[in-house]
């Protein structure tokens, strides 16, 4: 266990626990509006202050963990599934399949992904489901390239040749022999992918196109922070720190996993 991996596990584990046990950990109801306690600076009663509706920012940040973790993980699952399918197909079958799929991957890589995400969310309606789907569908290209390269090198290895000679069907070879060997590569880019997806989701929510109020998310607390930047710094400061540490944690975890597989 290397240091990167350990610190990654600690950070990510901490936020996982926050997300799962949010109702037990949060001191107040994150939706409770107290109009006599609007824009209070941090104090022992409200460790991160209150927002424009007198809601406890600390509790909202804790509940916000749920949105970030959920969106991050689901989006990455989507992109891993697409990326692995494309990569394995391209690498294993080669030829025209490979050319077509990799060309398509190049095209997708050309897009300013954030533009594409914004456009799609604009054409549909802003909701967490759409955000997860779009982040997943626009984020699989890196995985596809990695998996393709792995599959290419595995394909010519003896155990795959042996499996083919012994008459195993293609799906069986793919699922039983090839895929288990690309898992380590996938796990690294999946972990780093969660970090990226959390950043994208927070940016979308910040722009008002992700999680919709009153659902608390780090991004939409920051929107309130921006609107009230002149006097309520705590609305901007704390959710940002939460994003920073979570993303840092996933990055450390990913780098740690990469170091371990070397």
């Amino acid at each position: 266990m290397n240091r990167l991996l350990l610190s990654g596990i600690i950070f990510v584990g901490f936020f996982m626990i926050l997300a799962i046990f949010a109702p037990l950990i949060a001191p107040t109801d994150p939706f409770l509006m107290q109009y006599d306690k609007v824009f209070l600076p941090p104090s022992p009663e409200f460790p991160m202050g209150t927002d424009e509706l007198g809601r406890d920012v600390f509790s909202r940040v804790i509940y916000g963990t749920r949105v970030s973790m959920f969106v991050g993980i689901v989006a990455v699952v989507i992109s891993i599934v697409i990326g692995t399918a494309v990569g394995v197909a391209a690498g294993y079958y080669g030829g025209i399949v490979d050319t077509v799929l990799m060309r398509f991957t190049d095209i997708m890589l050309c897009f300013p992904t954030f533009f594409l995400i914004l456009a799609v969310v604009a054409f549909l309606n802003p909701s967490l489901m759409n955000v997860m789907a779009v982040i997943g569908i626009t984020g699989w290209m890196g995985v596809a390239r990695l998996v393709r390269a792995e599959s290419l090198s595995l394909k010519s290895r003896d155990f795959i040749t042996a499996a083919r000679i012994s008459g195993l069907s293609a799906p069986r070879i793919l699922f039983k022999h090839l895929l288990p060997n690309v898992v380590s590569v996938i796990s690294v880019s999946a972990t780093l992918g969660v970090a990226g997806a959390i950043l994208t989701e927070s940016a979308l929510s910040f722009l008002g196109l992700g999680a919709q109020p009153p659902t608390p998310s780090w991004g939409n607390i920051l929107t309130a922070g921006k609107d009230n930047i002149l006097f309520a710094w705590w609305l901007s400061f704390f959710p940002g720190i939460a994003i920073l540490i979570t993303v840092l944690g996933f990055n450390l975890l990913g780098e740690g996993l990469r170091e371990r597989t070397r």
Partner: protein
Amino acid sequence: MAVYILKRLLGLIPLFFGITLICFFVIRLAPGSPVDAEGAMNPNFTDNARQKFIALYGLDKPLHTQYILWLKKVVRLDFGTSFSRDARPVWDKIKERLPVTIQINAAALILIFIISTVLGVVSAWYKGSAFDRTVTVLVFIGFAIPTFWLALICMYIFGVVWGVLPISGLTSWNYQDLSVWGKFTDLAKHMVLPMFVTVAGGLAGMSRFMRGSMAEVLAKDYITAAKSRGLTNKTILFRHALKNALLPAVTLLGLSVPGLIGGAVIFESIFTIPGMGQLFYQSVNMRDYPTVMGILVIGAILTLLGNLLADILYAVVDPRIRYAQASKGEE
């Protein structure tokens, strides 16, 4: 060289078709076609506008005809008229916003390249030193920091607490009355925060890449050979190592164009800079579909051009590419 550029240009054609195809399928998500119900919720999407939209994209015709019709218009930069109240042609709206975004991004790209080269090269040269470790920690934080949050914090510190920098717009309200020098400093002051945020956003990845690239070169035999010949560090660094380490970075620079353009949406709307990103954000919020589509296509084409530029730069600095490609072309 000309052959090489020509080949690259030809290579862009399938990419262009692919990109427009994807954009085209994004249009299909719009109300008026498959998801009619959602259009009914949109107050900007009146019956009149709907008819125009359907006519513009030929949504009542078969799919392939629709695509070809639309493509013909795109080639002529005809993206229809905006749904917003001014109802101007979309291309006119984009055209006046484009220079600001391109200038900021180009300047940011150059700064990112210079700063990350210095950071990466020095880190790799003094590998394991205090400087190297500090940069590594900063890079990790840089990867994790949300750019829009950095923008907010900078606005708060420099604009609100210290009050030394303006926090929005490109120019002050009295810009027209200022002297030439006054205009310049006014513009420069307004650019400091947006530039800082944009550069900071791209710096982490690039300097990490430069460090890796430089470390790889420094481990090569010819560097050891150069050392054993007794060449000075200066000669080894500038004549042998740097050029080879910079090569792969040029490609990465081209690849970072989409990220920068995407980031423009965020920093332009935070700092209220009248660029393409801000227009895009406004159009998204107003559900101004023609403008959204226009910017999506233009953004993708800009990215293509960025990649092309990187390829050409690569060939300029690396003769191997030039000759390999050119000779292949003559076969």
